[in-house]
């Protein structure tokens, strides 16, 4: 484009001229378009990248469509051949002819005179409708069935067996996996989420013999977690045998209960492994991406969310959750009794307390302890007497020794793995991080303390669940998560290809 000529006159340029109010579409002759404009007028130009059109505004008034069929920024072909120069992007240009003319450009640094927000709202709505009203031919009810399958497989995957059973009964879906298998997975998941890694590994080995032996990296991951839980004082090895099996604890209600944590969704469809830190934002219920929580409030967030989750779940679930809360309560109590009194003042509510160690606030603790102690009484009795501050492995010397021993085993396992499979960056890092906890007198308040957060159990849990499913010849990821991941990926691709509508659609609108 010749920069010495007014915009609109030359090929690939477009303009609206103030002297005659005409619009120029790559041509020396204009079309009658709008009013003339002069000193003091505010002229706006809006390029719509969805329908490739453009309109101008004068002093906030939409003057109407000026151009359609504007060149698209980049066509599909160009992704392959990005060297094509001709199909250029559009650049905002102002042409001036008289010396001494002054213009002021506003790219949004101050509010626009034209109500662009309102205009965008309409396009958000239009895009939404386009998606929602997308025609699907559903002659044989296949679409319906597919949707039901997506729901059903999701429920099965995460072990919501009661709900899954009810759902498949009312929709006539069949469940591929048998109920007992689902329950097994559920049991294991519960153990992991409760932080009782030793038991979880043991149960997995019992129920799925050979699985962990074949997946040594997974086993290593589980063991690293076990080590962390030992430091935390939650693992069975260090807490003593009082609670051997989770099943015994919630007796009759257990067959309808489900894992109490919401599963992690992996946004990256390419990911072969469940990378704990890479996964964020797509979980329907909670923000997962809590990285290295430096303040107690982040862990509290997750806990509060958990409480709200209970509303949607069955009575059986409620018990499970209260159990989970008990665990948190235990952590707090194990660590520091004196803090509890502070917690009763509900300081957490104000967000003033920054100490990591206070996992629960006084309210929830009180509620669950008093309200549900018929299920948890025995556990309560097991709790170590709270000492002055939170201590390693719950402060028990024997436990510390066990932990150190376990650490040595872990170290040798790591070396064995290295010998057999070569160096693994992620395994190294996990081990290093886990061991680093011991370097601090107060691991909970250390830079690596985030590992002790119960939220960190979730990726481990998901990885184990996926591995079990894979070993049974089932998909390691439920189709729903696959769909979400694909959609996310698709949106990214659209954005890369500069397809306008992707800016007006948001996957999160559909994930509540």
């Amino acid at each position, binding site marked *: 484009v010749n920069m010495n000529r007014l915009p609109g006159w030359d090929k690939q340029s477009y303009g609206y001229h103030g002297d005659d109010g005409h619009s120029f579409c790559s041509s020396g002759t204009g079309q009658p378009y709008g009013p003339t404009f002069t000193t003091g007028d505010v002229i706006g130009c809006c390029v719509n990248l969805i329908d490739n059109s453009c309109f101008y505004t004068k002093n906030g008034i*939409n003057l109407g469509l000026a151009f359609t069929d504007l060149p698209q920024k980049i066509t599909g072909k160009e992704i392959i051949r990005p060297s094509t120069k001709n199909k250029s992007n559009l650049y905002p240009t102002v042409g001036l002819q008289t010396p001494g003319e002054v213009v002021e450009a506003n790219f949004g640094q101050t509010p626009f005179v034209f109500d662009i927000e309102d205009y965008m709202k309409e396009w958000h709505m239009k895009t939404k409708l386009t998606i929602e009203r997308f025609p699907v031919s559903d002659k044989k009810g296949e679409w319906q069935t597919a949707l039901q399958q997506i729901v059903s497989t999701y429920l099965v995957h995460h072990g919501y067996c009661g709900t899954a059973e009810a759902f498949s009964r009312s929709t006539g879906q069949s469940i591929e996996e048998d109920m007992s298998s689902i329950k097994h997975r559920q049991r294991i998941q519960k153990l992991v989420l409760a932080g009782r890694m030793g038991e979880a590994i043991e149960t997995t080995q019992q129920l799925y013999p050979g699985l962990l032996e074949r997946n040594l990296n997974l086993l290593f991951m589980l063991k690293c977690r076990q080590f962390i839980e030992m430091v935390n004082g939650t693992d069975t090895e260090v807490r003593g045998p009082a609670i051997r099996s989770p099943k015994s604890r919630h007796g009759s209600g257990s067959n309808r209960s489900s894992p109490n944590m919401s599963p992690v969704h992996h946004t990256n469809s390419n990911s072969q492994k469940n990378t704990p830190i890479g996964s964020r934002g797509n979980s329907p219920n909670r923000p997962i991406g809590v990285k290295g929580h430096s303040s107690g409030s982040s862990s509290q967030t997750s806990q509060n969310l958990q409480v709200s989750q209970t509303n949607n779940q069955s009575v059986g679930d409620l018990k499970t959750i209260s159990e989970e809360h008990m665990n948190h309560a235990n952590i707090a109590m194990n660590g520091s009794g004196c803090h509890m009194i502070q917690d009763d003042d509900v300081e957490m509510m104000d967000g003033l307390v920054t100490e990591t160690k206070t996992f629960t606030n006084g309210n929830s603790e009180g509620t669950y302890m008093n309200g549900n102690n018929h299920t948890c009484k025995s556990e309560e009795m097991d709790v170590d007497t709270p000492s002055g501050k939170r201590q390693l492995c719950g402060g028990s010397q024997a436990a510390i020794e066990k932990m150190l021993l376990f650490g040595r085993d872990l170290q040798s396992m790591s070396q064995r793995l290295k010998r057999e499979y070569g160096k693994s960056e992620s395994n190294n890092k996990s081990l290093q991080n886990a061991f680093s906890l011991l370097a601090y007198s107060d691991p909970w308040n250390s830079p690596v303390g985030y590992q002790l957060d119960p939220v960190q159990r979730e990726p481990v849990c998901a990885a184990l669940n996926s591995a079990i499913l894979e070993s049974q010849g089932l998909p390691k990821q439920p189709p729903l998560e696959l769909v979400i991941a694909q959609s996310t990926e698709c949106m990214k691709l659209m954005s890369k290809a500069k397809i306008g509508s992707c800016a007006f659609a948001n996957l999160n609108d559909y994930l509540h």
Partner: protein
Amino acid sequence: MDVDGRMGMVDSILSENKDKWLESMIQVKNRVIGNNKQKDEIIHQGVIPRLLQWIIDEDIPVELRTESAIVLGSLAKGTTENINCLVDSGCVAVLLKGLSSNNIKFIEACLRCLRTIFLSENSPLEQIYQDHTVIPHLINILSKSFCTQECITTIFSNCCKTADHQNALSRNGAIAALAPLLCSSSYKVQMPTLKCFAVLCYENETVSKAAATATYNGESIPNLLLRLLSRDKPSEMQMAAAKCLTYLCRGGAIPTHCPTIQNKTLSTLIRMCKKDRTLEENVEGAETLAYLIEEDANLQTLASISDHIIKTLADYLRYTSVQQINTRSTNRKVVNWSNELKQAAFRAFASLGANDEEIRKKIIETENLMEHIVNGMNCSDLKVQMGAVRCLHSLSRSVQQLRTTFQDHTVWKPLMNLMNNGSKELLPVASSTLCNLLLEFSPGRERPASESPRLSVSQKNKACLEAGAINILAKLTSRSEGDLRLNGIWGLMNMAFQADLSVKIQIVDVIGTEQLFRLLSDPDPAVLIKTLGLIRNLLAGRTDIDHLMKIYGSQIMQAVVFILEGDHVVEIKEQTLCILTNVADGDEAKEFIMGNEDVLKKLMTYMLHTNVKLQIAATSCISNLVWNEQEGAYNRQAKLRDLGIQKLLQQLLSANDAVLFDKVKTALQQFT
């Protein structure tokens, strides 16, 4: 079997066997749902009175009363005859009574039936105003449930047709009760609520102002409406909210320069006119736009450059597909969309071009606009006729258009036809238009020679026009409506301006001197002024003056004296003195003044009047009388000198007013 079964349940309803009632009612209910034939039969079997009897009887179990109301509601969803049957049997009064119950289910059933009845045409809407307790009660139970909200707002929006209705509702706190419903989560509640606000405020300044200042949750109603105008709201909701804001603005409650109106409401209405909206919204959008900008030049200018509105409206005129079923389920009737769109476009054009010549020019550029207007005036649809005339009226304010486009199309023909044969509602705007057209068609206007071919066309038009127009206008002057009399006399005045003597005589002949003088005592001073203007235009040109004075001289002089002696504003007196000046310009006509000492004395009085305009007018008249180039000037000068007028003039030489001074000097110079 089927027939027996139905007979059985009707029989048991009409019987005294209480145990069977409820069961039979439920059978009846299931029978009539969605089946007009069954509804007819049940009505003919005389069930309605029985149901009404139960509804009103408080000793009947409430379940049965509720079922009765539900069945009535179902019957009301049938044909118009079904509704008429219900109304004729006194259903409305009974259901309104039923509303005082404590049972919400029963109340809702009654309300649903009432809503359906009031949604119909010719509903007995006065009934809710007759009993003064009804409206307060409705407002009282308004917020009870989604159902009561939806039904009562729908009832109000369909029952508010006059200023009395508006005031009655407003007095009873309707505005405060309705405001929260604007924020309702239910579309079904929001929409009738918006409609309520629109009908409440339409052309009612008091209610509009009350609505504009009312608040809910600290937010004013205009602000709440503004939220519903947002572009991600359903289109119908944006339209309805824009309508409310328009009515508030025209009701004087929101200034036109306020951003709410100037940016938000205006742009919403313009959006509603676009092709991507429904025809219904197109029509409503253009009509509302026409109303919003009708009287505000600034809004007209803004609208005219917004989103190619003139082009968009021009497309309306080309819409040809005639019939299409209305999309609103509530009144399924066949609508002639072509006509609806045309009239809406005409009205919007009329408003757009009301003040600005540039905008008018842009409108005229619309392809075949004049043909469309002429066809519109010839159309059988009153709304289209009205729209076309309004549009023509607006465009006729342009002198340029009068000289060009209007000449090329014989627009006056259909216009006069409408005035002769059309509806009365058309007369005010049609006669105003005619007044404007007559300005150009007046003869004697000088034209450049190059335009002579057009001139001959125009003269042919002129003859036809004058033939009919004088009759029409003269008739208008004897109408009881002030605005029509004014337009009539105004038209005649325009017509008489610089007209041929024959035209002038025709005018006087047709209107008749009696009628002319009756108009001089018209209660409307504007009519009086235009009448005097007509006389003045008639008495122009020396030979014409003499000729007309010869015929009507005594009456005219009588009228002049009559006005001069009357108690009138300065403008009227000035106009009258100007008539005398014209009379004094004639040759023989001068005698009518010279021979009337009473008039001469009056002139002397006005020469000394405190108002300088009257002094000037009187002096001009004297100046004409003593004009020394005319025959008999010497005698007249002598006479006026004897009366002391020359001295009076000399006194006036000390006047401060320059115009008066010049006039006086000219008059004195005439004396020899």
